């Protein structure tokens, strides 16, 4: 995966969390992962289509989610509930959107999908033939990871016409 595609996401996360929650995130070591991602307490999945395609996932513990949403809403959230989930999904949406703008500024026009939320540890997520780079970010009492499974697109704009069938021929 092209490293050029990573920075917009790291920058966007840093900027948005600083703006919304007042934390300055630090970056840990990047890792390329081929094994499936085993979910943390909360995972936001957002897809990209366009000049860059694939998925970005933001994962964190319940603890981090509660701290972040408490900071963002300005009121104490003590329990994982639909409001917290919605807040984290929205955070993911804003971060990915910001990254999308940065990608566009660098010449990669993309659109992001609405977010999907996974709640619960231990599910295995496979990004299949798109390898995944994991960026750990942390600050004080919060920690989260950005999982990036992205590639520059080989599709034309009208993706609906670009159907790929299974590549293995079937026995007649």
């Amino acid at each position, binding site marked *: 995966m092209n490293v050029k595609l990573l920075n917009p996401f790291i920058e966007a996360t840093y900027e948005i969390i600083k703006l919304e929650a007042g934390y300055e995130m630090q970056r840990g070591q990047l890792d390329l992962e081929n094994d499936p991602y085993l979910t943390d307490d909360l995972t936001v999945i957002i897809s990209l289509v366009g000049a860059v395609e694939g998925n970005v996932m933001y994962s964190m513990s319940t603890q981090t989610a509660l701290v972040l949403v408490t900071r963002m809403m300005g009121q104490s959230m003590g329990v994982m509930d639909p409001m917290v989930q919605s807040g984290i999904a929205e955070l993911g949406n804003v971060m990915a959107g910001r990254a999308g703008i940065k990608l566009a500024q660098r010449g990669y026009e993309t659109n992001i*999908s609405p977010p999907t939320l996974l709640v619960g540890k231990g599910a295995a997520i496979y990004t299949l033939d798109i390898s995944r780079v994991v960026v750990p970010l942390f600050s004080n009492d919060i920690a989260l990871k950005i999982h990036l499974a992205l590639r520059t697109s080989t599709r034309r704009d009208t993706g609906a016409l670009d159907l790929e069938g299974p590549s293995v021929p079937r026995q007649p």
Partner: protein
Amino acid sequence: MNVKFLNPFTEAVQMVLEAECGLSVQRGPLTMQKSSMTGEEVTVLINIVGQVEGTVLYGMSVKTALNLVSRVMGQEFLVFDDLARSGVAELGNVISGQATIKLSQSGYESQISPPTMIEGKDVEISTLDFQRIDVPMTTEAGDIIVHLGIREGHAAV
């Protein structure tokens, strides 16, 4: 969610499973869901962007997944390995692609994302404020539940 977005997907499932797996598919009663869903053993997640937006999820048991892939590839799969995984994801990809063609014919241009596989029963999957319609599709090879959390969108793709 408008029913006009639903049929392209259920028709695509029927069309693709017949063509690729030689299966006839029956559509069961659809239900509208507001809350999150629990994952099935295997779930293919594909996002849609454009004049239709949201998420489609195809859920099934590992057994059904293996049956389907075995039929597509013309060889028996006994273990749900990466090749099997890739085959199931591709089915989801082709089905969703066909659905976007039908949507396009109705005037709704959209693009699908690459597929993601989620494996793990009991994980909670939420499409948040996208109301979901669940449609069970039954076949001789097993059942697939199509979860549709999609609505009219505004992005130009």
